[in-house]
């Protein structure tokens, strides 16, 4: 599972039997109380029911493999929609794709041009009855003097029936063997070169801080790049063995996650040659399973030709067991813009997992819907080795959704 926190929005993507919507009320309250976003459902932010008013909300998922094992309201789309409708005003729910096959669900609220409903004057307010649910207005576009984020597009690839050989790369036993082999090889190389390095398990230039908790960083900071084989660095850093038990490099989830990222090709989806500040945080679960988040702080050209640093991300989650094999890839890195085209990214990701089936959803703000991206969308219509089953376009007020579904030939 992953969470991405931007100044103006939060993305939460959770796996398995997690109860994502149970956290929604707390999320809205945190946004109000801790970040100061406006509240319209109570007279005061001190009220325990106070919740920030969202500008817009998206909720989506693929159909579940085992809905009966999910906690409510996640057992059915109708229950999820009911929960969301009881929380927000003005939402719309959609099912995209074959009802009797793999399909995808979307719940969306749109910004309004006026406050909805009109605020009740304070003296006319009556206390709300305690309730588990109360509806929160969404929209309120007039409350913000801004314009929708430019280049807002989200690509999601959901893959099932993964190729068994490729799925092996996401089992701890396999990864530990790869890590051990690399460690041995590089230790030998280090000995040959009279270097203290234990090898480039990480291959990353991120600085890792070890901590007893996520909040309390302690003085165990070490530089993963010092694990590398950069000849300029030889002998100029503290030996890794003094900072991290070498044995843990073949068992620790984050160290092994980095091995998997390199070994499966994920690290090359957004290569540092094109995205020099890209960083990946990956974790290998025991006995199997894999998650990774990537941040790509690349410059982004705005509509007025100014350049700002974008908050781009990608995230990957893999469940490799044969009876429920699944992998997802999601990114908001815009295609093109001197980086990789959307079609290249899709081909690369699908090549990592070689799924039997996969869907591609591209959700794109119309402001960013220029000629270049339109051409890119058409180019990924066909993919070697796969037959396209569905292509469905939804034209929303300010977004366009393109859903495609493919099967292996």
């Amino acid at each position, binding site marked *: 599972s992953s969470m991405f926190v931007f100044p103006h929005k939060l993305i939460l993507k959770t796996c398995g039997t997690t109860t994502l919507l149970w956290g929604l009320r707390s999320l809205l309250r945190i946004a109000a109380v801790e970040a100061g976003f406006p509240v319209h459902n109570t007279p005061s932010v001190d009220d325990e029911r106070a919740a920030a008013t969202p500008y817009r909300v998206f909720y989506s998922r693929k159909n579940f493999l085992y809905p009966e094992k999910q906690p409510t309201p996640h057992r059915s789309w109708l229950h999820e929609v009911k929960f969301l409708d009881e929380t927000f005003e003005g939402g719309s729910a959609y099912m995209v794709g074959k009802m009797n096959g793999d399909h995808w669900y979307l719940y969306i609220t749109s910004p309004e041009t006026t406050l909805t409903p009109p605020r009740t004057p304070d003296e006319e307010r009556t206390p709300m009855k305690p309730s588990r649910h109360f509806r929160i207005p969404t929209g309120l576009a007039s409350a913000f003097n801004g314009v929708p984020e430019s280049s807002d597009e989200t690509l999601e690839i959901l893959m099932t029936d993964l190729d068994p050989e490729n799925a092996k790369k996401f089992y701890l036993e396999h990864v530990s063997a790869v890590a051990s082999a690399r460690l041995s090889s590089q230790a030998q190389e280090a000995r040959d070169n009279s270097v203290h390095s234990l090898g480039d398990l990480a291959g990353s230039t991120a600085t890792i801080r070890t*901590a007893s908790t996520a909040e309390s960083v302690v003085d165990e900071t070490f530089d993963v790049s010092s694990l590398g084989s950069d000849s300029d660095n030889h002998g100029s850093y503290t030996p890794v063995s003094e900072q991290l038990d070498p044995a843990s490099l073949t068992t620790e989830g984050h160290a092994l996650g980095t091995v998997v990222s390199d070994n499966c090709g994920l690290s090359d989806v957004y290569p540092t040659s094109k995205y020099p500040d890209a960083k990946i945080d990956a974790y290998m679960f025991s006995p199997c399973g894999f998650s990774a988040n990537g941040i790509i702080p690349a410059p982004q050209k705005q509509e007025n030709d100014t350049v700002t640093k974008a908050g781009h991300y990608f995230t990957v989650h893999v469940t490799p067991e044969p009876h*429920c094999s699944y992998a997802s890839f999601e990114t908001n890195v815009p295609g093109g813009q001197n980086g990789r085209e959307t079609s290249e990214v899709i081909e690369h990701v699908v090549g990592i997992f070689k799924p039997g089936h996969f869907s591609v959803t591209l959700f794109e703000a119309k402001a960013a819907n220029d000629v270049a991206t339109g051409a890119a969308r058409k180019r990924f219509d066909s993919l070697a080795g796969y037959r396209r089953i569905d292509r469905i376009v939804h034209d929303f007020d300010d977004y366009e959704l393109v859903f495609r579904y493919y099967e292996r030939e």
Partner: protein
Amino acid sequence: PFSSSEDTPQLTINHDVAAELDSSSAFEGPEKLLEVWFAPSAESLPSGVKPDGLKSVAADIWVPMLDEVHCKVLSVLKSERVDAYLLSE
């Protein structure tokens, strides 16, 4: 030996959680995805909002909310524009 730009993301690992995980009982791949926007862009936060908006919220404030969702924080990759939390489950 390490040089980086000002915006190099920084990673913090929560070893207490990361050391205890076991995915043996996993059976369901497909995820749920929730995206909640509170403003049209990072540059157009409403008045009264803290300068960094949601990013100003400390990591431990999110923990009870994530407990409700049944997720634990494994690690956090922080950058100037977005913070990425890698979660259990």
